[in-house]
């Protein structure tokens, strides 16, 4: 095998959908990319029905991170083949029983969007610029060819206007410069087709209660929030409260982001389950930590998914993770296969844990 190119990703999930029509649906995302590509996601599990829980998992948001899209396509193929054959699944020392597989495929909706940013991936895999990260939209036609693209994972509508919301000296990982090669946030929140496709997927599955965005590399499993250090005691100190604009992201603790204690406990427990599976699969675990560490982030996917409930409490609460898999952006394919096994083991463990119903988001916790 070798890394999937963008055409192969599309055909691979389409073929899986055709081979397993009773438990899948191929979903065309509504927005074409700037290079005219139409992206698809794959739903595994029962058709839409009220009360059905969903897990949404995305990959390929950053072009140079080649392993995540392959991992998600592999995950779909493994789950569907095992389910059809009535078998379990094993990755290294991590075993999932046939009942585990049935509980995932038969009892919930698993929505996989393997390659959010196909234009960027195509550029990274075929041009001299393999380290390309952003999408490929030319936001300002007056600027040169290096000033192309927006960082999809800074374009979500959560504290997107970082200059207003964060302290000037916070070092927030974001830029308003279209020529910034890494973290240009775009001309507006959700300005990019790729970002809107992820939002559309979350809107389409209102039963979503868990979200994971697979990136590379650290390796680590990160949970909310990325704005500032978490705290569980002062609900008024939250991302919606503009009294704290200009204070977020500093190390001085003038501001820390509120997270309900139950959510934090659940995030840690689910993250631990994923990490146990990763460790069993490969022999080496990932770091499990809050996503805020060295510098804060704005407009990222996992915080957006979790924020939706606090912005509009009619929406489900979506506990969210970013998985930073592996130890390099583009490992050899032989090494990539091991990373794929780790990712598949971790994500199936997440689904199995959520199916067990022992773990779920707190029923309600609002920020003021």
């Amino acid at each position, binding site marked *: 095998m070798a890394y999937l190119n963008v055409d192969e990703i599309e055909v691979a999930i389409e073929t899986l959908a055709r081979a397993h029509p009773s438990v899948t649906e191929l979903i065309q995302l509504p927005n074409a990319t700037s290079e005219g590509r139409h992206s698809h996601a794959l739903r595994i599990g029962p058709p839409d029905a009220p009360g059905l829980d969903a897990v949404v998992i995305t990959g390929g948001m950053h072009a140079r991170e080649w392993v995540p899209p392959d991992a998600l396509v592999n995950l779909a193929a493994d789950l569907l083949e095992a389910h059809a054959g009535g078998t379990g699944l094993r990755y290294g020392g991590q075993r999932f029983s046939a009942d585990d597989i049935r509980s995932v495929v038969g009892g919930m909706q698993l929505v996989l969007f393997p390659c959010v940013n196909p234009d960027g991936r195509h550029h990274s895999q075929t041009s001299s610029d393999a380290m390309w990260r952003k999408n490929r939209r030319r936001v300002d036609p007056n600027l040169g060819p290096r000033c192309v693209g927006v960082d999809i994972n800074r374009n979500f509508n959560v504290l997107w206007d970082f200059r207003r919301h964060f302290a000037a000296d916070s070092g927030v990982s974001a830029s308003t410069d279209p020529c910034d090669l890494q973290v240009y946030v775009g001309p507006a929140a959700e300005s990019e087709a790729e970002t809107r496709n992820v939002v559309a997927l979350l809107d389409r599955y209102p039963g979503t209660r868990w979200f994971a965005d697979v990136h590379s590399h650290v390796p680590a499993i990160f949970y909310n929030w990325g704005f500032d250090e978490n705290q569980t005691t002062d609900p008024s100190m939250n991302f919606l409260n503009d009294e704290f604009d200009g204070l977020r992201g500093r190390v001085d603790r003038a501001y820390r982001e509120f997270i309900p204690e139950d959510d934090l406990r659940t995030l840690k427990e689910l993250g631990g389950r994923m990490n146990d599976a990763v460790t069993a699969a490969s022999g080496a675990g990932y770091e499990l930590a809050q996503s805020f560490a060295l510098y804060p982030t704005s407009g990222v996917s996992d915080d957006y998914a979790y924020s939706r409930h606090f912005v509009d409490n009619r929406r489900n609460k979506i506990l969210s993770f970013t998985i930073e898999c592996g130890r390099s952006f*583009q*490992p050899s394919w032989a090494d990539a*296969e091991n990373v794929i096994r780790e990712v598949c083991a971790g994500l199936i463990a997440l689904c199995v844990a959520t199916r067990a119903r022992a773990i779920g988001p707190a029923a309600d916790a609002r920020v003021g």
Partner: protein
Amino acid sequence: MADGDVHRIKLRAQTLEELRAFLDGSGFDLGCRPVVHREGNEFVVEVYAPLPEVDRLRSARSVSGVDVTVVENASEVGRNRQAEVGSGNRFAARQALRGLGIKE
């Protein structure tokens, strides 16, 4: 090596504050996410930058207490890895991909 190639660089420091002082305002590519991890008693962060920027880092090292190690030419690694990307469309015949998990 091509002009503008980006190198993967590992920075080590005894404290988080040293790393921040070193990185603040640098505009370096901090990889996917600006995170730091522990290796033994040290804080470690990886950045991606062209070699001239690496030289600037090294000159700054004497005042920052941050150890700088160039790991690899990441751009070159990426270009070499392009040989390991599928060509054409291996699934054009609509044969389903099989995953790496063992079904048992």
